[in-house]
């Protein structure tokens, strides 16, 4: 999963502290725990790239805390990421999962994002099927393997499409 855009998505929900960001990340992307070191490295990169800004430091009882807020550039970057289909690959599932969850939380069009990804998957299946037609048997088997994996993703896309409304309810209850 792409950690940076996922964090950016969580910041886009509303200004947040590094500590809260980690809590939210661990809860939303259940099972994909992230270390504080990774978070602060990602935050530094995003500040450098102008995607977020650090708001004034707040001195409290403990060490100074910074709140992070998304910039207009950051929002554009996030929208591009959400709306660009991924190349079908074994690493895709978690990325698509993150995009779907964030699209729901940010009231973006999750349905459309799944449609775009479905179309990208079907297009890739078409390419592979065309290749397969003239391929020797061994290659056909290799292509079959790729086709079955893409098909598994598609099933997940269809199952998720059918459950978007319920997912949205659960996420708003959680937030």
């Amino acid at each position, binding site marked *: 999963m792409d950690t940076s855009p996922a964090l950016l998505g969580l910041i886009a929900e509303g200004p947040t502290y590094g500590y809260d960001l980690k809590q939210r990340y661990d809860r939303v992307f259940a099972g994909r725990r992230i270390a504080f070191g990774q978070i602060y490295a990602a935050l530094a990169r995003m500040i450098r790239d102008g995607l977020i800004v650090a708001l004034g430091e707040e001195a409290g009882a403990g060490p100074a805390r910074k709140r992070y807020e998304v910039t207009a550039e950051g929002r554009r970057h996030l929208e591009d990421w959400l709306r660009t289909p991924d190349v079908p690959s074994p690493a895709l599932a978690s990325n698509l999962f993150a995009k779907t969850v964030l699209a729901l939380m940010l009231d973006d069009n999750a349905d459309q994002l799944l449609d775009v990804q479905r179309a*990208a998957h079907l297009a890739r299946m078409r390419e592979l099927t065309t290749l397969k037609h003239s391929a020797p048997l061994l290659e056909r088997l290799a292509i079959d393997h790729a086709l079955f994996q893409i098909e598994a993703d598609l099933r997940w896309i269809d199952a998720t499409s059918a459950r978007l409304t319920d997912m949205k309810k659960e996420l708003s209850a959680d937030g």
Partner: protein
Amino acid sequence: MADLATTAPLIRATGLRKSFGPTEALRGIDLDIDRGEVVAVMGPSGSGKSTLIHCLAGVLTPDAGDVTINGTELGRLDADARARLRLKEIGFVFQFGQLLPDLTAVDNVALPLLMGGASRRAARAESYAWLERLGLGDQGDKFPGQMSGGQAQRVAIARALATRPTVLFADEPTGSLDSVAAESVLETMLDVVREARTTVLLITHDPRTAAYADREVIVRDGRLSGSALVGRS
């Protein structure tokens, strides 16, 4: 007219709506299909997929909108004229159970040709040629019960193509076959239809089957979604 025939889409559906009682099965569908295109029609059950296909084939009359096939507006035809158009322009292949069990493969294929007025001899010769094209050159004298599922589907495809329809509606044509047999039937079918430039609507819920088409349209809640969105961002 020659220009029109080459540039206009072979099938054009505009503003199709159809309800069954309170249920809106189609809620405004626009679809163009070019001559020679192979288009997969996908969608979950209950999406309106079957209603769309039945409207495109002139089996159902839409409440609103119209379908034009090869320059003929279906809405302007009475039931008889629609039935004649179906016989002339459209071939159908279903999932299974479409061959007559008491006729040999070659006689099954010859049947629509005989109904169209061909002589028995010409019809059988033509039918053997179609069976040959579908890889069944030596199976013509077998009865459907003596054939595998994949072979029987090839016979059904040969029969649907024998009348040289402009459009072939193939509804889950390999739905009852295992994946290796399905693959072989689809590859053969697609080779033959592409060579004949037959336009095909391949109705399926299976993405592996849909991948044999040039593009897909996805019906959901009575509307088209999916491929129309590609390229938009």
